[in-house]
């Protein structure tokens, strides 16, 4: 049982800002994902919670108690590292048992708890191997078992899937989701992969340059991105963003014209998702030659150029077009997200 609260949490190295004024309350048993490009401060935030990095300003509270000055060992967190950081001289059993040993858990309980943890990640057959004799996925599971064996209050995972190949990543992702559901432990998960964030999280924190951009459920972040950066970071493909001008309540550019917008005149950024737009026979707000066509299997991706930006639209899977063919794309104002051209902030609901 533990609720984590971050109050104005900041990290600076000299004049370089790692994390700036991070405020957040993480509910007990919540699965929180910190998402952002590399260098956005997500790992730094996690390391501050783990106690591996000193806090420059602000406070970290667990269940109402400030833990800023506690050593990592006194914080009752466990962590899965990106590189796994297994102890190479110990076999799998000893690796998993290590946290129990150093924390002076009664010897009698060790075997049972190690067996339970290793069974959860299906490692029973490998207990006597050294880490060097395991595959990447198996090492990753040892790291997971070592983290769960102690039944900590908080689980920290630093890009645990980034060293696995694509196929293994999907199955391990499912395993982590299932595990967190079973263990009911507050989990903070760092990743730069928006799909991991969408699939795993109860709530996502999108960060950039040490500053929190948006906090919300995956659906909120996907459906109503708080700014152009979040819009461009979430989704596959990312949201189409077009810079242009609003004149007389209509957004228009060289090949686009969306009317009926309730906005004052001036520059804005218009965004819409590839799957919301559609290829149409007549009408449509965009009329442009096909720049490229990609077959995705379940859909066909048509890309055109609008105001110099590449804009993608998902069409039916049997749709075909040649490069250069003129297509009409329907972009009704209901699917459009408007962002301030300067700040990138969302305009309207």
């Amino acid at each position: 049982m533990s609720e984590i609260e971050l109050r104005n949490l900041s990290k600076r190295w000299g004049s370089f800002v790692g994390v700036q004024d991070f405020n957040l309350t993480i509910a007990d048993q919540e699965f929180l994902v910190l998402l952002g490009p590399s260098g956005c401060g997500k790992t730094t935030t996690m390391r501050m919670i783990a106690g591996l990095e000193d806090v420059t300003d602000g406070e970290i509270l667990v269940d109402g108690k400030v833990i800023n000055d506690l050593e990592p060992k006194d914080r009752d967190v466990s962590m899965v590292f990106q590189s796994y950081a297994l102890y190479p001289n110990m076999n799998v059993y000893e690796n998993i048992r290590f946290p129990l040993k150093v924390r002076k858990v009664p010897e009698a309980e060790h075997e049972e708890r190690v067996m339970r943890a290793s069974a959860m990640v299906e490692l029973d057959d490998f207990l006597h191997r050294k880490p060097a004799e395991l595959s990447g996925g198996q090492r990753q599971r040892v790291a997971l078992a070592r983290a769960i064996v102690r039944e900590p209050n908080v689980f920290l995972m630093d890009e645990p899937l980034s060293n696995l190949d694509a196929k293994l990543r999907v199955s391990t992702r499912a395993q982590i989701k299932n595990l967190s559901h079973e263990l009911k432990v507050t989990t903070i998960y760092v990743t730069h992969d928006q799909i991991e964030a969408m699939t795993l999280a109860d709530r996502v924190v999108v960060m950039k340059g040490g500053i929190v951009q948006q906090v919300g459920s995956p659906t909120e972040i996907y459906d109503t991105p708080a700014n152009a950066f979040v819009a461009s970071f979430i989704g596959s493909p990312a949201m189409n963003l077009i810079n242009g001008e609003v004149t007389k309540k209509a957004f228009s550019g060289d090949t686009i014209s969306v009317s009926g917008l309730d906005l004052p005149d001036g520059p804005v950024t218009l965004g819409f998702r590839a799957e919301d737009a559609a290829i149409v026979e007549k009408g449509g707000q965009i009329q442009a030659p096909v720049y490229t066509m990609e077959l995705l299997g379940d859909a066909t991706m048509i890309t055109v150029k609008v105001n110099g930006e590449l804009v993608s639209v998902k069409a039916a899977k049997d749709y075909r077009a040649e490069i250069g063919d003129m297509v009409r794309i329907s972009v009704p104002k209901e699917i459009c997200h408007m962002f301030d051209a300067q700040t990138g902030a969302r305009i309207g609901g």
Partner: protein
Amino acid sequence: MSSVSAQRRPKGLRIAANAFVVFWLILAAFPFLWTLWGSFKVELDFFSIADWTNALTGANTERAYGTTTTTTAYHGAWIEQEFWRAVINTAVVCFCVVCLSLTMGTLGGYALSRSNYRYTFWLLIAALMFRAMPPITLVSGYLLPFFQWNLWGYLPTTIVVLVAINQPFTLWMLHSFFQKIPKELDESAKVDGCTQFQAFRHVIIPVMWPGVITTGLFSFLLAYNDFVVGALLLSEENRTMVPAIAAFLGTTQTEGNVMFAVAAVVSATAPLFVLVMFFQRQIVSGLTAGAVKG
């Protein structure tokens, strides 16, 4: 693979390459083999002015003792001249120097490798400078205070000086070994419940053994082969092996004394061969394999 590519080389080149290796081996090993062979002869044979082949045949040795080989040189050095004292002294000095150097070196090297402060770089540069200085500069400076404080001539004094000379090197070597161990291992241990020192002891040192053994071996060799410090800072009864050998060579008035030196040289060299051959596997094998993703 290598044998296949060796086959492809022209025959002449292969013969030349092998001949060179054999030549080099003889060149390198000859002084040792010559000394080993000669140590079982009398001085008149090994240092024969009349005919150098006496050293091989042992003509004078046969005349004196009835056989072509004799262990009189060893007997003289070990029993009469009490070379065994020097051996014990060397053992004591080497053991203490290795233990002290490694204790301070591992702790210091670990601290330096994990420190984020910029002065660690300058500390290491300073260490490098002290390493570059000839040991005698340290020793000559110590002589006067050691005489005045009545510390001269004792083994502990020499041990301290040798450790001081050796420390920059062990610090550098261990520091670079520690840097090769990923920081995530420490951090993981700390999150798992270790203090910094427990992480060092339970997680880092077990991975560090090859580095510690290698560094220990070099520290041992420095102490074992030291001449300057031992010769200047030790009294006669506390001498280590190398200064003792030098002392045998310095007193050639009595016939046979120089042979004590030869026998002592062989006695001092033999353990080194065993040592290097025994440890070479440990040095080569790396324990860090599999620590991080592979």
